[in-house]
């Protein structure tokens, strides 16, 4: 009997807590997602997706994209900017608007210089954007007075690419007075900035409990006026957990529902589904090295004729993806919409026979754990591919391994076939074209041992071609070459379906995953 009373009391506490929690939720947004990749909130260090989502709202960048648009740069901290050809180099000059950090300090040219030099010195995972893509060094950025900054770039870098990558979180301007005061030894305050904020963005960091939540509060000193007073990012790894929490009203936004859950929510009047664009491509990489099963381009074509992309897009991804067969994603300059391949078992078998493999062969397909693009479990996608390839006599043995182990094998050119994804580092076709085509870039083409001189040359030419028409022609040539001979079978370009409670207004997400919380209301 006493036990029963105890149980009733416990249940009572449960009910009480559930009801009490209904109160304090007027101007707070709770955003549910898998934020387990969050390791630092320092804009100069963070390169992971979740880090970007948070720091984009804590810091402002010199220039920025607005809404879903990724083609027009808008003023951020910089009110105006000019690119000048200075003969042996490019000079990019920024005139800063009058803004304040959360601390009350004004945003000055010195802060910009400190931010850029700091990011290069810290050598974080995203620092290659500054030192390798933009070819910047410590000292490239100079303050010309209190509110004017000049960045000098060598002619090997593209000023357009530089301006683009300033929109990333690594370009988030930090409060140099505050950060310097928190620096320990040679760390540029990065230990402190990991868990604190020092920006001029619409929000400030209230607290971050690892693997639990990030709490952001509106920044009263920011020129960006937030409609919400608080945003809580609640970490929920399991799709089902997010679904349950969304249904019970505990969270307002769920980011990682499975395609089936999204489909169900799309027809539910209580929820809206927002499908954000993404520049990611899910693909199969085939090792073309000498002696490899996939050395002959006809075998790679056979694979493409075997893949049932329509089912992957419509069934596995629940329609939250686009069928793509070329290497530049839709939404970027140079996208080639042609989809010449469809399921044709006879043709595939013919190509295999022509390549001297009429009876097919057996090989290992490396697959990462967890979810692939568009929330499709990699295990399911792999099983589907295995089933498709089986129809033309290719026997894929699935080996699902940890991401870092897979990368180790892939990067050593030792994978036969991999099922992975790729996102360009900045919204420019070169973010895909060079890594996927230029063997010398030691990236994806290299990993698949695909050494094609024509492809390398086309990618290099296209990257620096200033004339849009000529550039477009070069990319058309390159994507067509890939369709015939390339080492990749592109599967699809995902959408990112975000499920929101109908009370949430103003949610927008661009293809780089940036969401401006200040525009959201509830």
């Amino acid at each position, binding site marked *: 009997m006493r036990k029963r009373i105890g149980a009733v009391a416990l249940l009572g506490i449960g009910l009480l807590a559930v009801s009490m929690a209904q109160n304090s939720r007027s101007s707070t947004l709770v955003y549910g997602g898998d934020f387990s990749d969050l390791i630092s909130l320092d804009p100069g260090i963070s390169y992971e997706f979740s880090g970007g989502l948070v720091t984009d709202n804590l810091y402002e960048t010199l220039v920025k994209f607005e809404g879903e648009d990724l083609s027009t740069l808008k003023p951020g901290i910089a009110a105006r900017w000019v690119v000048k050809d200075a003969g042996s180099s490019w000079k990019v000059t920024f005139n800063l608007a009058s803004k304040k950090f959360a601390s009350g300090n004004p945003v000055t040219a010195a802060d910009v210089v400190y931010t850029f030099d700091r990011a290069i010195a810290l050598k974080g995972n995203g620092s290659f954007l500054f030192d390798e893509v933009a070819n910047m060094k410590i000292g490239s950025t100079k303050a010309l007075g209190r509110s004017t900054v000049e960045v000098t770039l060598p002619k090997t870098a593209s000023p357009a690419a530089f301006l683009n990558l300033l929109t990333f979180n690594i370009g988030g301007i930090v409060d140099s007075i505050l950060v310097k005061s928190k620096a320990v030894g040679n760390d540029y305050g990065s230990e402190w900035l990991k868990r604190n904020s020092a920006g001029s963005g619409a929000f400030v960091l209230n607290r971050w409990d690892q693997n639990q939540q990030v709490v952001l509060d509106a920044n009263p000193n920011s020129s960006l006026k937030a409609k919400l007073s608080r945003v809580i990012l609640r970490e929920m790894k*399991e*799709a*089902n957990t997010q*679904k349950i929490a969304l249904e019970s009203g505990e969270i307002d936004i769920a980011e990682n529902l*499975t395609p*089936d*859950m999204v489909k*169900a929510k799309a027809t539910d009047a209580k929820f809206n589904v927002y499908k954000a664009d993404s520049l990611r491509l899910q693909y199969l990489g085939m090792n073309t090295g000498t002696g490899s099963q996939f050395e002959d381009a006809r075998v790679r074509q056979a694979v493409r004729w075997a893949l049932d992309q329509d*089912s992957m897009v419509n*069934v*596995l991804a629940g329609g939250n993806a686009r069928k793509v067969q070329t290497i530049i994603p839709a939404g970027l300059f140079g996208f080639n919409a042609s989809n010449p391949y469809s399921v044709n078992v006879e043709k595939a078998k013919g190509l295999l026979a022509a390549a001297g493999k009429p009876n097919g062969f057996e090989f290992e397909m490396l*697959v990462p*754990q*967890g979810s692939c693009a568009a929330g499709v*479990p990699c*295990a*399911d996608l*792999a*099983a*589907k591919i*295995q*089933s498709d390839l089986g129809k033309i006599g290719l026997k894929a*043995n*699935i*080996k*699902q*391994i*940890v991401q870092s*182990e897979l990368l180790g094998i892939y990067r050593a050119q030792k994978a036969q076939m991999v099922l992975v994804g790729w996102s360009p580092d900045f919204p420019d076709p070169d973010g895909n074209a060079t890594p996927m085509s230029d063997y010398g870039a030691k990236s994806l083409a290299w990993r698949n041992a695909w050494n094609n001189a024509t492809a390398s040359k086309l990618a290099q030419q296209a990257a620096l071609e200033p004339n849009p028409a000529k550039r477009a022609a070069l990319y058309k040539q390159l994507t067509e070459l890939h369709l015939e001979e390339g080492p990749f079978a592109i599967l699809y370009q995902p959408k990112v379906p975000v499920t929101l409670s109908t009370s949430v207004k103003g949610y927008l997400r661009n293809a780089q995953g940036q969401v401006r919380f200040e525009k959201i209301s509830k």
Partner: protein
Amino acid sequence: MLSAVEAPKKQASKASKRFWRNPASIIGVVLLGLLLLIAVLATVISPDPIVQDLGQRLLPPSSQHLLGTDQLGRSVWGRVAHGASLSLQVGVVVTLISVTVGVLVGLLAGTFGGVWDNVLMRITDIFFAFPSLILAMAIAAALGPSLTNTIIAVAIVSWPSYARLVRAQAMALREREFVEAARAIGTSQISIAIRHVFPNTLTPVLIQASFDVGQAILTAAGLSFIGFGAQPPTPEWGAMVSETRNFISEAPWASSAPAIAILLAVLAFNLVGDGLRDALDPRNTR
């Protein structure tokens, strides 16, 4: 415990009578028989576990699909049935390995004593100090996910209990008359261990082993659930629960069927273990 000197036949028949009179052990044996039957006849009585039909996804149980279909339109019954032999194999192989290693270590330590005993038992202690699933997870992660590696990982965490069990038995037997007599007439230590000590440890080892097959199935399925087990599309039960867990609202059968299969398999071995203990070790009757 039992001693080899007593009339073994009479005792065995007594034990067997006790075993079969116990309804729990009969249920256990029947469950186990059923499981074996399904495992052996899987290809005959159930559809292919790998073949997909994306037009037939997440269908509820019906006359056409006995346990419904999963997210790729595969037959859940086919997958559960084909998974039976995998899980049984994992359980049995893990137990065979851990019994072999554990008995060997325990015999060596218990018979020779001294330095052997010290070294071997300290190693055993170290293995005991690991939280089993975490160690198994670490090993499986290090070796890479595959069913074979799961077996190795689970075996590594389960052998020490046999070592302790057998050593305790061997220590107790060392003082017994028939062992002392054998030693007196100059029988070598090794042959004493093999001929006198080993047979006498069989009963407790058998009892422990029958429980452990079930535990091994449970642990291995747990590893698969986290992602350190069978490779897709292998119809391993733990992996099936994991792959279908997000469909618990729309298609509860897809994850519940393999989970209940795990439950029944573990239950079967536990019941048989209970029955064996009650029958062979009457002093311990509950």
